[in-house]
């Protein structure tokens, strides 16, 4: 009886779909609650944040809190610092990372394997074990409380994983194309620039997003190496703000939302490549 089995198959398929989709949706709702709550608190009048019963639909939406933070010069400063730190870290890491990944992917070197293993060890090095010497060294070389010091140290912590991710990408690109270009008279750097880098763009975008998110969210190194708002990023601003205005949940959440907006935008745009990078080359 073909029909009966067909029907049973469809019935089973339906149950399976309902189960999978509803369980995932339920998890997503639970997981997104804190985020929704943050945005919600950032945009409603002060009386409504901690009411009983809690309300999800604000009686009025207000951008007052976010606007007043954006107008505040101190917080604009934090925002600018975060932007400078993240973009500079991104630049340094991509240049050093692309070169190193190219080297590891295209050449067999004396001790190359050990260098790669060493880089993997650095990848796992916890930041906190180095804050003491960083604090001291930054004072000694005059990089304490400067954006530059923070950028350099940030780069050192995110570079290892970038080399691994980018190397994974380059390994997957056949070497023949570059060779053809070099036979046609390109130098090695030109071949890299004109053939390899364009082909590796998805990997570079994914890795770049990774770096940007890391640098934007970095907290411990910033708290170790900076002391004044002139060189502090938003994460520090957020912590300081929280310490100062414990009760003002509207403004705290408004600042937290503003801090997260650039990341959410970047994530929506580049999610595909980040996921691709993480699923393909990150851990093997």
């Amino acid at each position, binding site marked *: 009886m073909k029909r009966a089995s067909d029907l049973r198959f469809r019935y089973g398929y339906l149950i399976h779909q309902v189960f999978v989709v509803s369980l*995932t949706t339920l998890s997503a709702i639970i997981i997104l609650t804190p985020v929704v709550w943050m945005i919600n608190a950032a945009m409603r009048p002060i009386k409504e944040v901690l009411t009983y019963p809690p309300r999800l639909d604000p009686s009025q939406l207000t951008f007052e809190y976010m606007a007043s933070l954006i107008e505040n010069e101190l917080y604009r400063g934090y925002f600018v610092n975060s932007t400078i730190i993240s973009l500079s870290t991104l630049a340094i890491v991509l240049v050093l990372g692309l070169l190193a990944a190219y080297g590891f992917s295209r*050449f067999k*070197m004396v001790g190359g394997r050990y260098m790669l293993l060493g880089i993997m060890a650095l990848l*796992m090095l916890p930041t906190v*074990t180095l804050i003491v010497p960083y604090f*001291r060294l930054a004072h000694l070389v005059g990089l304490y409380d400067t954006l530059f010091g923070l950028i350099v140290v940030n780069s050192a912590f995110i570079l290892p994983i970038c080399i691994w991710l980018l190397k994974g990408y380059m390994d997957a690109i056949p070497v023949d194309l570059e060779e053809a270009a070099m036979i046609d008279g390109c130098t090695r750097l030109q071949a890299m620039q004109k053939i390899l880098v364009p082909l590796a763009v998805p990997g570079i975008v994914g890795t770049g997003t990774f770096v940007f998110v890391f640098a934007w969210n970095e907290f411990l190194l910033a708290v170790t190496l900076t002391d004044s708002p002139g060189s502090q990023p938003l994460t520090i601003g957020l912590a300081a703000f929280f310490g100062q205005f414990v009760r003002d949940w509207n403004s705290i959440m408004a600042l937290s939302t503003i801090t997260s907006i650039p990341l959410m935008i970047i994530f929506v745009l580049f999610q595909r490549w980040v996921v691709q990078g993480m699923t393909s080359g990150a851990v*093997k």
Partner: protein
Amino acid sequence: MGEKGAHQPPSPEMTVKVTEAQSARQGPPSTRRVLPREMYGFLFVGPAILFFILVSIFPLLRTFQMSLIDVEAGIPLFVGIRHYAELVQDPWFWSSLTNAFVFTVASVILHIFIGMVLAVLLNETWFSTTLRNIMRGLLILPWVFSTASAGLMWTLLYHPFGLLNYLWVGLLGQEMPIEFLAKPGLAMASVVAVNTWKAYPFYMIIILGGLQAIPPELYEAAKVDGANAGRRFWHVTLPQLRPILIAISTIDIITTVGHVDLIRMLTRGGPLRSTETVAYYIYKTALLDGNLGYGAAVSTLMLIMVAILIIVYLRLVSRGSESGETSF
């Protein structure tokens, strides 16, 4: 390896070797790595390696050196192993180790469990791929937020008049709100919950990648043999994911044990130092109390523990490479 020759002035032997290599290159076209001179790669790798030596490895050695001196007086004073002797007798150090252990083990189990469940769900066949991709995006979202933001979001949820207490008091009819972050036993659980929320997406995505790489024939064969979904998971999925699970647990243990910002935002190590992990203890003694030498001693011990883990892991990985499991 016979690459030593590259340091010596070119000898007739070398030239012969090079021409041999060149002619080999013009032969069959697609061996993956074709290499000209052996040292050429260093031009590309060099800058990054130099950067690591200056910014990571040199400070790493300084950590050890600083653990042997006192800098409080302004002039460095060599004190030998005094910090380590104090450390062994410091009850807060030992309690911070216990806390770190609890924090790490609980977090890692939850990360991998939740990551695995959600990855399996996302790996099923969905009636709509678009819906599945949207769900995947939503489920990764917590990863994007900074720990500082995550800490604040959850502090609001944990507030005595926050959402969670509304559910507890308002819906379940309990009398007293729960002090999620202020009760010694509960505070650690609350911090673990936030860490789980923040970090599971990373592991979910990597597990998802691992699931997608499992050849479907294995499942079909298991199905033909009459294995139900549970047995298929146990006998096909888990063994296939083994290398990935080893890798992410190691990375997760090391990342989690190093968390300072989360604890700094949520509890500052309190109440009664019940959430003070080793990492937070380093931050506190070195930066807040200004006791750099002592902080360096704690860091050194932590480094040694982490190094043991890393070495065990790297050995596993390199053994894998001989059987072709890894990429190097």
